[in-house]
């Protein structure tokens, strides 16, 4: 069932274009059915509540325990239902929102792809599969942000979002592999958290895991991708970038809380979350664009969730997670309506819309007030829980929380401000949105209101939050609107009071904010980082690419030279035969001549002189062979020398004059050192091979040359008898070489006509 639930949206996504062709945007209606199986997950609630969650698994790669194992525990189920409900609403909304000229097929396919990926992510029990779905959500997000691909900002936003979340995703991959190695299982439900905590790689594991969570959930300083992600169509912003995908990181924190709660990491997350909360709210207040305001507001609210889950308050966090998803999605959809009807999203251009759009206004009020944290709406209850938690956490946390909430209150009023006051709008005829655009936010608003007014009801807020209790290991309390005169409530009064003041003073305050804005921010850091990466890349490329041939050779020979230096002397000591007698003088003379020939090649100015020096070295070698009483070797060598010289001479006439490149003294020294070390390596290698490791084979031939080969000349017998086939092969090779040489010499060199030069 779970597998079916997760894969239905994927399969439907493939066929979405078939439906959009005849139906256009209205295809959203039938396509919304893709979420029907996930809505049916409601049936699994009793099982989840009893602590025996439904599971379902399909083997994927048996070899490494990679299976698509799904597990519908309470928390996952809660989130999956959230995804399904908002998904359906967004599809219906989009059917009215999208204009006739849009690429509907692509839009719905991407949206369903995302829906499936998100469901897969929350329901996955297998860590690797969880990672795969996580990455898929990033890809879907990339595609949807870049949906209006002719806009430059959309391209930039899409790329930025992908880079940051995909980087986090790869960190997650490493984290889950480390987790499964240390925790003894690839399934989350069977992971031994204690073993992971005590493992030697606990710190990198957790750091990688948190990096993934914080990038995905847009925590400071990774928050920068979320505001620019708002280039996506508004239904997408509502669905991905406020209600579901950005909470994937939060889900990760919630699920892996046992790893870090009650440690220093927990404090770190608390303050990071609060910092994000403050910074998001502060920035949101500054915005004129309603969508940007909501984007920063989302950053801020994600900060609250990080602080709560991070510091170990899953109950308050889960309550807020549900509330936030509902009111923020509603508000985004409202912004979509405003944009759709008035053609603007700017606070400066819009005012008094309540008169022309009374229904939209009615939908907005509860949602905005819930965001502000006013009773009797859901947001109030979860904000009280947040305050209580922060009061327990200490003085500094509650102060930051209150300051952040004051700004939250103020920007919520600012949002509502476009509906009140004198009517102002750029477009002359403004009327209510189609019913199918109004209904989805209206439904969410009703939920928001019911969460606040009847929170203890057996079918609403309390049981919803309680559903997550067994999975996250907290004691579910009942949610109440009235808690009595608690310190938290006192702080709420302070919040509202100062918040109203702040809203009244918004002009000077925003001006002050503008004046205080530093020239750099997370965004400029991002661009600097990208530019820095490019610079570094260019530097690396310049220094490694197109190295001249000589430099490439130096690199190639470098390791051998190194080996020569490191092992060469050692090898000399081990393999140099002892008891050597000095060679006769004439040997020395011949050897010196060989050396002289080699040196001559190095300094020769023309090819011909170099050839002559090669000949000198070769012929001296022949002399050495003669002295060592090896006439056959000498003869062979002589023959080779002659052939080589003839061959060289015959091709020299095709070659341009020899050019010698100047080398600096430093390079010459380096090359000499390189050559010396390589020589040492080769010499020690030769010595080593002289040492007999196997039985000597000479005696075998000496014994049997006469009896079995019938000849006294052992060398001849070997050549024509013992290794006759070898000789035959060699003769064949020689014949082929001879023919090739003949063919080469016969080629007439005609200059190539119209030789093109490479562009490469």
């Amino acid at each position: 069932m779970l597998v079916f639930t997760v894969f239905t949206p994927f399969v439907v996504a493939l066929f979405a274009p078939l439906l959009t062709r005849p139906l256009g945007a209205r295809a959203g209606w039938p396509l919304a059915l893709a979420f029907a199986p996930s809505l049916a997950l409601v049936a699994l609630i009793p099982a989840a509540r009893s602590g025996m969650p439904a599971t379902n698994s399909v083997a994927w790669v048996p070899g490494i325990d990679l299976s698509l194992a799904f597990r519908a525990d309470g928390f996952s189920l809660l989130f999956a239902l959230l995804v399904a409900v908002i998904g359906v609403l967004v599809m219906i909304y989009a059917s009215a929102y999208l204009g006739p000229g849009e690429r509907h097929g692509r839009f719905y396919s991407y949206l369903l792809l995302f829906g499936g990926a998100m469901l897969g992510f929350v329901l996955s029990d297998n860590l690797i599969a969880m990672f795969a779905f996580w990455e898929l959500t990033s890809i879907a997000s990339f595609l949807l942000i870049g949906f209006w691909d002719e806009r430059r900002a959309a391209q930039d936003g899409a790329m930025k979002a992908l880079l940051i979340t995909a980087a986090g995703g790869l960190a997650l991959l490493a984290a889950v592999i480390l987790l499964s190695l240390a925790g003894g299982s690839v399934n989350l439900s069977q992971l031994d958290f204690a073993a992971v905590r005590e493992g030697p790689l606990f710190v990198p594991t957790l750091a990688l895991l948190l990096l993934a969570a914080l990038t995905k959930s847009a925590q400071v300083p990774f928050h920068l991708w979320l505001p620019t992600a708002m280039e996506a169509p508004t239904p997408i912003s509502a669905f991905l970038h406020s209600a579901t995908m950005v909470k994937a990181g939060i889900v990760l924190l919630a699920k892996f809380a046992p790893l870090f709660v009650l440690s220093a990491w927990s404090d770190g997350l608390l303050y990071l979350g609060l910092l994000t909360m403050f910074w998001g709210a502060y920035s949101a207040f500054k915005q004129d664009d309603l969508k940007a305001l909501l984007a920063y507001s989302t950053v801020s609210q994600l900060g609250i969730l990080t602080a709560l889950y991070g510091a170990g308050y899953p109950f308050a966090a889960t309550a807020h997670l549900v509330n936030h998803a509902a009111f923020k999605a509603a508000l985004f959809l409202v912004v979509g309506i405003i944009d759709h009807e008035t053609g603007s999203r700017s606070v400066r251009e819009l005012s008094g819309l309540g008169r022309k759009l009374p229904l939209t206004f009615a939908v907005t009020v509860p949602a905005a007030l819930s965001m502000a944290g006013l009773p009797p709406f859901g947001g109030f209850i979860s904000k009280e829980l947040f305050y209580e938690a922060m009061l327990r956490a200490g003085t500094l946390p509650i102060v930051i929380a209150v300051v952040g909430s004051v700004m939250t209150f103020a920007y919520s009023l600012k949002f509502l401000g476009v509906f009140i006051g004198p009517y102002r709008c750029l477009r002359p005829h403004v009327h209510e949105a189609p019913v199918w655009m109004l209904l989805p936010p209206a439904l969410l608003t009703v939920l928001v209101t019911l969460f606040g007014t009847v929170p203890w009801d057996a079918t609403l807020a309390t049981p919803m939050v309680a559903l997550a209790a067994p999975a996250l290991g907290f004691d579910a309390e009942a949610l109440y609107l009235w808690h009595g005169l608690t310190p938290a409530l006192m702080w709420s009064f302070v919040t509202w009071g100062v918040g109203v003041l702040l809203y009244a003073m918004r002009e000077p305050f925003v001006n002050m904010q503008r004046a205080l804005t530093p020239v750099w921010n997370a965004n400029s850091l991002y661009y600097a980082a990208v530019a820095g990466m490019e610079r570094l890349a260019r530097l690396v490329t310049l220094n490694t690419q197109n190295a001249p041939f000589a430099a490439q050779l130096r690199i190639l020979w470098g390791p051998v030279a190194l080996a020569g230096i490191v092992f060469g002397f050692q090898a000399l000591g081990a393999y140099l035969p002892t008891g050597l007698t000095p060679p006769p003088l004439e040997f020395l003379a011949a050897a010196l001549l060989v050396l002289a020939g080699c040196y001559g090649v190095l300094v020769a100015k023309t090819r011909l002189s170099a050839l002559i020096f090669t000949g000198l070295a070769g012929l001296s070698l022949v002399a050495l062979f003669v002295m060592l009483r090896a006439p056959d070797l000498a003869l062979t060598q002589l023959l080779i020398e002659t052939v080589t010289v003839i061959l060289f001479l015959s091709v020299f006439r095709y070659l341009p004059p020899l050019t010698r490149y100047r080398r600096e003294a430093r390079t010459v020294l380096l090359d000499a050192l390189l050559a010396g070390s390589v020589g040492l390596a080769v010499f020690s290698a030769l010595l080593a091979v002289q040492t007999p490791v196997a039985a000597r084979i000479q005696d075998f031939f000496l014994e049997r040359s006469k009896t079995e080969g019938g000849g006294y000349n052992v060398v001849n017998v070997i050549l024509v008898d013992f290794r006759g086939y070898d000789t035959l092969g060699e003769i064949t090779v020689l014949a082929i070489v001879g023919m090739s040489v003949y063919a080469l010499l016969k080629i007439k060199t005609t200059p190539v006509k119209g030789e093109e030069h490479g562009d490469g």
Partner: protein
Amino acid sequence: MDINWLVISPPLVLLITASVGVLMGLSFRSTRPVALLSLLGVLVALVLNAQLFGRSEPLSAFGLRYQADTSALAFNTLILLGTALVLLVSFDALERGLGGSEYYPLMLLSATGGMVMAAAGDFITLLLGLEILSLAVYVLSAWRPNARESEEAGMKYFLLGAFASAFLIYGIALMYGATGHFTYARVVEQLQAQAFTQTALATLAGAFILGGLAFKAAFAPFHQWSPDVYTGAPTPVTAFMSVVVKAAAFAALLRVFALVYPNLNGALTQALVVLVALTLIIGNLAALTQRSVKRLLAYSAVAHAGYLGLALLAADTDGGARAVIWYLTAYTFMNVGAFAVLSLLTDRNDRGDDVERFAGLGKTRPYLAFAMTLFLLSLAGIPPLAGFIGKIFVFQAALQAGYTVLAIIAILTSVVAAFYYVRLISVIYFREPEYAEVGSKSAMTGVAIAVAALATVALGVVPGWWYGLLGVGRQLLAGF
């Protein structure tokens, strides 16, 4: 001496086809008959190779010098598949102006060498395979008529390759000096013996062999040749080098790293760690700055050698060895696919491979654009494509073997990689077309692209089948 004809039949068929192809090429003006013959030969070899899979008895020929174990059979499957795809890509590209039907026999000879390398059970066979493989490729790199950079590519590759072979030969000679044997099994036996004293020499030998093979596998800083040669060579040949030559090099590396290196000085493993780290960093960063797609793919190929190297470090575990083969499987399809798309966009003489060629491809040639996107996403390791599963195997093997830092470097560089792959995708879809007439069409190349695209998806969605096959029956590497 046991010559097990059945076991050596796959490379033998290629050899015979190549010889027949040379003669046949003389009697036709078109290159197509030889191309079809070559394709037939490869397919027959593929069938012969496939029927060896899953046999329970150990398969070898020439007294353990040719080992047809699971690893060899798997690598040979890859080499043959890669060759078949490249033959399809060459089919029309050659007719368009590259000319010369000797091209196909040379390619088959090279593939034969690769197969011998993959199955080599001793150092001499390895060297033989390597030379057969390389010599043909040197010639093929210089195949573009009247193109300076192609001639340069061939010459450069030949000269540097000759040095690399020299390394390998010295290494082998030293190993023989230290142990008195060429066969891996006997060498290992010697190395493990109590009385063995030539440790220093064996280590030196190991260093030489590593250097020679690292050159072929294009590990930084021995990668210098590969971008130049990849760019200069005709695109189908580049595709061939990037998959078949690489597969053969890694087949050899896998065997020596799994069998011989664990018995040598640990410094060699550390050396490989350094090489892998350098490869990952240099390959990915250099790819980032390229304007030519061919060169970008060349550096991306270098970078992928880094990921393969990561798994190679864990070669002595079953997971590591399988990861190398699996990753190469994914890599073969996605890389040939990408080069095949590129080959349809370049000029008659295979010129013009800058990024602008891809601008607006999404509008002008949507199917080609979609396939290219698929290959690029897979190269970037995006689920649920083949490259993604490959990355998981590789990371898992590396982390299991304890290379945490290296894995983290790999992850960071993967982000860089995602950047340049996705940037190319955004050029395909977000930019307006800049070239009025976009490249050529070819049904055969289309078939290759389709096969590669299907395999890229299939390997990602159902990776279990091939992965399971790698573990069937016998051990992956004989003598494990």
